[in-house]
């Protein structure tokens, strides 16, 4: 019965896929419509960055990116609302710990590099933030329960830093007559770097905090919820 249903659904979805393939084929066979690629590269020089993807993300379509940071934050707020962080992992042995001592600073350095290079080569705030997040994950796996994150108050400020700086820059530009996220000529490069730096930190902290998987407890708070934060040693 269940097998039959799976088969039936499989056939239906194969039909759907065939229909979509046909639609895609029909479209590609037509004369390709005017794409944004030419336009995007024609204006690239005015965007303040030379990596076209960064230009789209932080200049042409910066509004999307701002909201994307809000989505990331909403997910973390949802995770925090579900309870305190579960217990950490067993602390790693000396050999692994020594390795972690090397990997984590390296990941942070690589993140900084990736942020800087994102202006003109592959890379940028999200990749850099992900590297910071990876450093956090490694720290947590090695037995650091807080994954290297600061206490709750600082953590809260850090996770809103990205969207906050972004929105404030946007709002400031609006208030000074340029329009929301419309960078004044010549200023784009520095404003984008400012936004990207803040976003990198926020993304790194948010991803790490999401991996930790619960409200940051400094060990004393939130015991009323009945969950003990025990760390194995």
């Amino acid at each position: 019965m269940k097998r039959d249903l799976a088969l039936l659904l499989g056939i239906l979805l194969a039909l759907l896929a065939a229909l979509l393939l046909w639609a895609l084929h029909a479209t590609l066979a037509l004369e390709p419509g005017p794409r944004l690629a030419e336009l995007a590269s024609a204006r690239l020089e005015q965007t303040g960055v030379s990596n076209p993807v960064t230009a789209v993300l932080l200049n042409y379509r910066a509004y999307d990116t701002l909201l994307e940071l809000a989505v990331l934050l909403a997910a973390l707020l949802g995770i925090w609302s579900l309870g305190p962080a579960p217990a950490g992992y067993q602390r790693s042995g000396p050999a692994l710990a020594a390795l972690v001592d090397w990997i984590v600073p390296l990941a942070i350095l690589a993140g900084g590099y990736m942020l800087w290079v994102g202006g003109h080569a592959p890379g940028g705030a999200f990749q850099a933030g992900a590297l910071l997040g990876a450093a956090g994950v490694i720290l947590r796996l090695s037995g650091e329960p807080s994954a290297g994150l600061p206490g709750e108050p600082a953590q809260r400020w850090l996770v809103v830093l990205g969207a906050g700086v972004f929105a404030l820059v946007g709002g400031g530009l609006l208030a000074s007559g340029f329009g929301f996220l419309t960078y004044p000529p010549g200023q784009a490069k520095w404003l984008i770097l400012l936004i990207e730096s803040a976003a990198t930190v926020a993304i790194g902290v948010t991803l790490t905090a999401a991996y930790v998987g619960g409200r940051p407890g400094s060990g004393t708070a939130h015991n009323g919820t009945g969950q003990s934060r025990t760390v194995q040693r």
Partner: protein
Amino acid sequence: MPTLLLLFDLVLLATLIVLALAAVLSPEPRRAVMLFIAFGLWLALVWARLRAPDIALAEAAIGAGMGGALMLAAARRAAHRDEAAGRDGDKRA
């Protein structure tokens, strides 16, 4: 398109779809997640071939990396639950 390149593309895509199929069909959680991570990394490789290095990096680091790490934690929990609970020293939330 040259035949050799077409062949290369076909192998690339066939591997991608086989990885996706394997991830989807694997009932064992840890194995499924490992296959999913492999799928994500392979996807990044394909995107690098399609001249999207930025996105390949992002998919490898965020999609396969962070997403995979998150799922792996869940898969390990699921596996622990399956292995009749109560074993000492092994169960972590």
